[in-house]
C-alpha cells in the first residue's frame, strides 16, 4: 500500500505512528478496546477474557497481546494508545503506569524521570542513535 509519509517518520526510535497501515491492521483490536467504555461490557470481558475477545475478528497475535497485557506489542499489531488506554482503565491502571511499562521502567523510575524534566530528545531522535543501546 502506498504511504507517502512512510519514510519520513519510521526512523523515529521507540515510536509507532498510528497511520493508515496500522489503522487498517488494528481496526478490530481498537474497536474491542472501545467496547470497554461500557460497564456491562467491561464486566463481561473480565468474567471471560478469551471468550469475550472471540466476539471480535481479531488476529491470534492481537488477542494474545491483549491477554498478555503486552502494551508495546498491542501497538505493533495495530493498537492505538488512546484505545489501549481503555483496557488499562479496565484493569485499574493509570496512564503513567502503562507508559512506564512500555519504556521498561518501573513506575517509580518513570515518575522520577518525568520529575527531572522527562526524557531528553538528545540521543532519542533517530533509530540509529538507539543501536547498540538498551531501551524498552
Amino acid at each position, binding site marked *: 500500500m502506498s504511504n507517502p*509519509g512512510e519514510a519520513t517518520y519510521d526512523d523515529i526510535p*521507540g*515510536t509507532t505512528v498510528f497511520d493508515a497501515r496500522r489503522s487498517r491492521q488494528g481496526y478490530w483490536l481498537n474497536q474491542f478496546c472501545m467496547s*470497554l467504555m461500557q460497564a456491562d461490557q467491561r464486566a463481561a470481558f473480565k468474567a471471560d477474557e478469551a471468550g469475550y475477545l472471540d466476539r471480535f475478528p481479531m488476529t491470534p497475535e492481537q488477542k494474545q497481546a491483549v491477554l498478555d497485557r503486552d502494551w508495546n506489542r498491542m501497538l505493533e499489531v495495530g493498537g492505538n494508545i488512546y484505545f489501549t488506554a481503555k483496557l488499562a*482503565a479496565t484493569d485499574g491502571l493509570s496512564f*503513567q503506569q502503562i507508559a*512506564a511499562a512500555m519504556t521498561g521502567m518501573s513506575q517509580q523510575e518513570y515518575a522520577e524521570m518525568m520529575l527531572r*524534566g*522527562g526524557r531528553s*530528545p538528545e540521543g532519542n531522535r533517530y533509530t540509529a542513535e538507539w543501536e547498540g543501546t538498551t531501551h524498552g
Partner: protein
Amino acid sequence: MARIVAGVATSHVPAIGAAIDNKRTHEPYWEPVFKGYEPSKRWIAELKPDVVILVYNDHASAFSLELIPTFALGCAAEFPPADEGWGPRPVPTVKGHPELAWHLAQSLILDEFDITIVNRMAVDHGLTVPMSLMFGEPDAWPVNVVPLAVNVVQFPPPTGNRCYNLGKAIRKGVESFGQDLTVVIFGTGGMSHQLQGPRAGLINRAFDQRFLDGLTSDPLGLTRLPHVEYLREAGSEGVEMVMWLIMRGALDDQVEEVHRFYHVPASNTAVGHIILQNTPAVPA
C-alpha cells in the same frame, strides 16, 4: 457584530482534571500547575466573553475508528461530559451556541473548509480540562461553547498551515454573525509529550519554548513545520500543537502576549499556556 478578541492556548492533560476532581490541587506536585493559571482565571473573569470557540481533540471518546472527521463542529445546544472509563467528570454540562455554530458551519463550508456538523457529541478531557483551568469549578459554565474537534489521533492530522487558515476562516465567519458577541478562541493540547512505546516520556523544553515564542511573533514560521518534526522533536502526541495554530490564525497578525506559563511535568506531559490578545481587546 461578533468579534474574536483573544486567544488562549493550553494543554489539556487528563491528570489535571483528575487532580481538580479529587481535590488534590494543593498538593506539592500540582500546586505549581494551578498557580500558573491564576492570572488567566482573573483575566477571563474580567473579560467576560459570551462565547468560547474551543479547539480540541477527542481521545476515542465520542469518535471511535468508525468515523474519523478531520474537523467536527459541535452545533448542538449542549454537550455532556464523556464517560472516559471511570465515569464522567463531575463538571457542568457544556452549553453550546447553536446559532453561532450553524452560522460558522455554513460560512466555513462556503469558504471551502468542508467541516463535519455534529449534533450529538460527548466532550472528553480535551475540552473540559481547559474549561476547568480557565473558569475553575462553577455550578454552571459562565460561557457558551462552540466545540471544534480536530482529528490528531489517526495520522495524518491536518497540517499546521491548514489549521492556521481555518482559523482565519473562523474569524471571517464570526465577524459576519449578526449578534454582538465577545468571543475568545481556545487552542488546546500539547505541549511536548509522548504517551506510547519505549520512547514514552519525551519532553522537549527547547522546542516548546520556540513554539511559544513563534506563536506570538512568527506564526507563519510555525505553519511550515512538517508533521515529522512535531513527532520527532515534540513526541508522537506533541503533534496536537497544530490545534494551537487554528487559534492563532483567528487572531490579528500582531498580538499582545498577556500571559505565558510553562511547567514540566503533569503526569507525562509538558504543560504550556499562553494568552494572546488583539488590540484593542474590547471594541469601542
